């Protein structure tokens, strides 16, 4: 007997260990849809599917959602001004950005419209700005504006010497990369999507009606399969018998500077792309830090998320030119993310209705921005592939804890602390994270399974001391909640 929407909403199904029952899903011959990969793209798709009366599963190999490329990017909500005009990516970024902005406001995901400046450091770059402005027009972005050197300096007084002018993109924004997939996943499981973590798909047998997925946690049957496996989308595709593309990881290393650097910069400072290649950017984060990066290194190892001495030196050299004072500030973290490059300047989204599969691949460097539009697009493709979606219903509302510096946080909220003193008990001092927020995250609908997962939900341990003061205390709270 199928569960009702209400009963499902009250008991979200999230599994992290143990064998999936031999005939997963229980009580039915198969899931209607299974999404492989719970990154920002997979969670967005699962959330969109949750509107329909479908039995939907969301699988990820990791112990958490958003634990692949989605956790390690530059966290910019792009306008799509510089996309390849006419491409699918250009459209989905444009639409996704609008949708996500509205969704963020509704759910409490921090977004700051700081605007971007493409700074020209030589005549060649300066000469390239009008063409970029024209490209923005072709991408239906009409607010781009050229700034001369004086106006640029007035906007960014700490820029290094030699900046000649800039193209301003006032709507480029920064967003929280961690609460975005968390919001999607939370809504999805609340609306009845089954989330199976630590569940790597190893092998797929595609029959006439169902795909049988052999995972590290047992077998699972599904009528339709959506491949949102990010860097591994090519391998899942090959399991399905398709061989359209190969994912070549393109590593982007980034340096995060301490919050005391935040006042040095007002906008996202983008490089001007020229024949000589792309430079690096300097961008504020919603947590109040400053990012410097990313590099672009083509690799063949899909697990090579480490940083290297050469890249750190290169970034520092480039950063010194852009914002000399930045280099005097303390570094909080160095990390790297891998873009799922496929040798094509566009997404690789392909539906094969006869095979009941949709591949959502090649979501290289704009997936956070485009996630909601990708989800809508994929859902439309699914509706056209023989699955009766029915009428969509409203999703249960979610409110995410605010992780953004530009919005009030619990430690500043007298009323909240009066009602519950745990919000006035600070545990992580650098990031001002209270015991109340940590408790809430540990008891949340999609709880963390590692201190790192807790960090992405609360910012605890994310600050300049990297645990010197609070690391042991945060771990103690995590372990206490688990036992």
């Amino acid at each position: 007997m199928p569960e009702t929407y209400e009963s499902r909403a009250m008991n979200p199904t999230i599994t992290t260990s143990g064998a999936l029952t031999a005939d997963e899903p229980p009580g039915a011959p198969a899931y209607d849809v299974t999404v492989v990969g719970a990154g920002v793209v997979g969670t967005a798709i699962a959330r969109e599917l949750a509107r329909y009366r479908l039995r939907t599963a969301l699988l990820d190999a990791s112990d958490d959602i958003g634990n692949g490329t989605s956790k390690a990017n530059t966290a910019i909500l792009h306008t799509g001004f510089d996309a390849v005009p006419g491409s699918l990516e250009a459209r989905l970024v444009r639409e996704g950005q609008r949708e996500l902005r509205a969704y963020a406001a509704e759910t409490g995901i921090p977004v700051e419209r700081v605007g971007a400046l493409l700074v020209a450091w030589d005549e060649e770059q300066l000469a390239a700005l009008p063409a970029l402005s024209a490209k923005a027009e072709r991408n239906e972005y009409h607010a781009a504006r050229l700034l001369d050197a004086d106006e640029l300096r007035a906007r960014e007084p700490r820029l290094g010497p030699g900046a000649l002018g800039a193209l301003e993109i006032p709507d480029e924004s920064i967003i929280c990369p961690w609460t975005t997939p968390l919001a999607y996943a939370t809504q999805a499981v609340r609306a009845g999507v089954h989330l199976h973590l630590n569940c790597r798909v190893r092998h797929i047998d595609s029959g006439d009606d169902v795909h049988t997925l052999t995972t590290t946690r047992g077998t699972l049957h599904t009528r339709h399969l959506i491949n949102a496996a990010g860097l591994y989308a090519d391998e899942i595709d090959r399991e399905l018998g398709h061989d359209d593309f190969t994912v070549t990881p393109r590593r982007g290393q980034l340096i995060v500077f301490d919050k005391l650097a935040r006042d040095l910069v007002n906008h996202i400072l983008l490089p001007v792309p020229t024949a000589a290649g792309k430079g690096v950017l300097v961008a504020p984060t919603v947590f109040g830090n400053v990012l410097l990066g990313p590099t672009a290194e083509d690799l063949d190892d899909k697990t090579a998320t480490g940083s290297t001495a050469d890249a750190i030196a290169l970034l520092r050299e480039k950063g010194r030119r852009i914002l000399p004072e930045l280099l005097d500030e303390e570094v909080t973290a160095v990390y790297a993310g891998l873009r799922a490059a496929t040798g094509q300047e566009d997404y690789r989204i392909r539906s094969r209705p006869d095979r009941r599969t949709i591949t959502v691949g090649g979501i290289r460097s704009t997936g956070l921005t485009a996630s909601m539009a990708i989800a809508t697009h994929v859902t439309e493709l699914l509706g056209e592939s023989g699955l009766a979606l029915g009428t969509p219903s409203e999703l249960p509302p979610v409110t995410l804890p605010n992780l953004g510096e530009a919005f009030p946080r619990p430690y500043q909220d007298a009323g909240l602390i009066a009602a519950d003193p745990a919000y006035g008990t600070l545990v992580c001092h650098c990031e001002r994270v209270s015991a109340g927020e940590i408790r809430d995250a540990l008891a949340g609908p999609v709880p963390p399974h590692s201190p790192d997962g807790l960090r992405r939900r609360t910012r605890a341990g994310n600050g300049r001391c990297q645990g010197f003061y609070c690391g042991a205390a945060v771990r103690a709270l995590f372990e206490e909640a688990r036992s």
Partner: protein
Amino acid sequence: MTRRERTVDVLIVGGGPAGLGAGAELAASGAGRVEILEREQTAGGIPRHCHHGGFGGRTIGGAGTTGPAYARGCVAAALRAGATLRTGVTVTGWAGPLTVDTTAPTGLERITARAVVLATGARERSRSARLVPGSRPPGVYTTGELQQAVHLYRQRIGSRAVVIGDEPISHAAADTLRVAGLEVVAMVTDRAPARLAVLTRGGDRAPVLGRTTVTALTGRERLTGVSVRHHDGRTATLRCDTVVFTGDWIPEHELARRAGVALDPGTRGPAHDAAHRTSGAGVFAVGNLLHGVESAGFALAEGRAVAAPVLRHLATGEWPTGRPSVAVDPPLRWIAPNLVGPDGELPLDGRFTLRTTRRLASPLLVVRQDGRELHRQRLLLPVVPDRPFRLRAGWLDRVDPYGGPVRISVC
């Protein structure tokens, strides 16, 4: 927004040895309402979790009581003297030149003082802050985190550890690791190993790899090794599941910077004169916020010593401006204090505290201002990185208060 607004005479931020020392002495000398705010649930600062002995003296290491006992002693002395000590209260920022905002389980406050003493201490730089490349697995610690994990929370650490550093703190970290049942496979330092220190410590079994830098951390789910390169070009990967980054201090200077007080480029703590006056009128600073890192006894003594200048300021309201700075030339790293006050006040024990970037055998230090030599002094013992050495301050009265910076160089 509802913040309870209050006033006190002296507000001390930080309840470590320095803040507690300041609170004790100020309360005892009738400074009025003296309030110490400490963000942790227990006051005492870093010694709270240093279970080894060696606390009380002017230098780190050597004999002395254990950290927790020392911390309790500091707390008791402050309370006995009549200071108000509030724990679990974090100063989150400034609402005016001498007005701070606080967060505590009991609510939000806005406290205005007639003088503020910053005593927020120093922390060790993290692996990231040191720009150590590689992966980001669990198993990477600083001494501060390690000691809390072992002594305050009894957490499981691992089985094989590498310690980065070869100063007294590093050996304290190695001891803590052994207490927690780990084998310390090596201590790694990019400096020449401090052989004497090793010889005098019978308990140390781990080899010290000198002139060796960490080139990467490896491992994904868990640390699997520390890759190193010796200065002669040899490389190796030390197999371990735990690594502790020790020393490499940076003052906990957020509040100081948010107050807009000038930092000293060498120490990265607030620039200050011998009376512990920063560039912000009414804002004093003591302890390791000024210099990473001196001993707890030194921090406590600085705290006590700040009482007299605070009382003087409360009485007169005066604050010096335009003080000449004191700066060092390479290979020296920093000096504290680093401003010359107008009133001939001498630093603690009548001596400046310095650091060097490299070992110098009995260096000759020369003090000059605008080309004029004020003092020269040969040190009898060699000076080494990460260990304090001192310079007599008797020349301070020869400084031209309107002149340029005072420079200390090695001849």
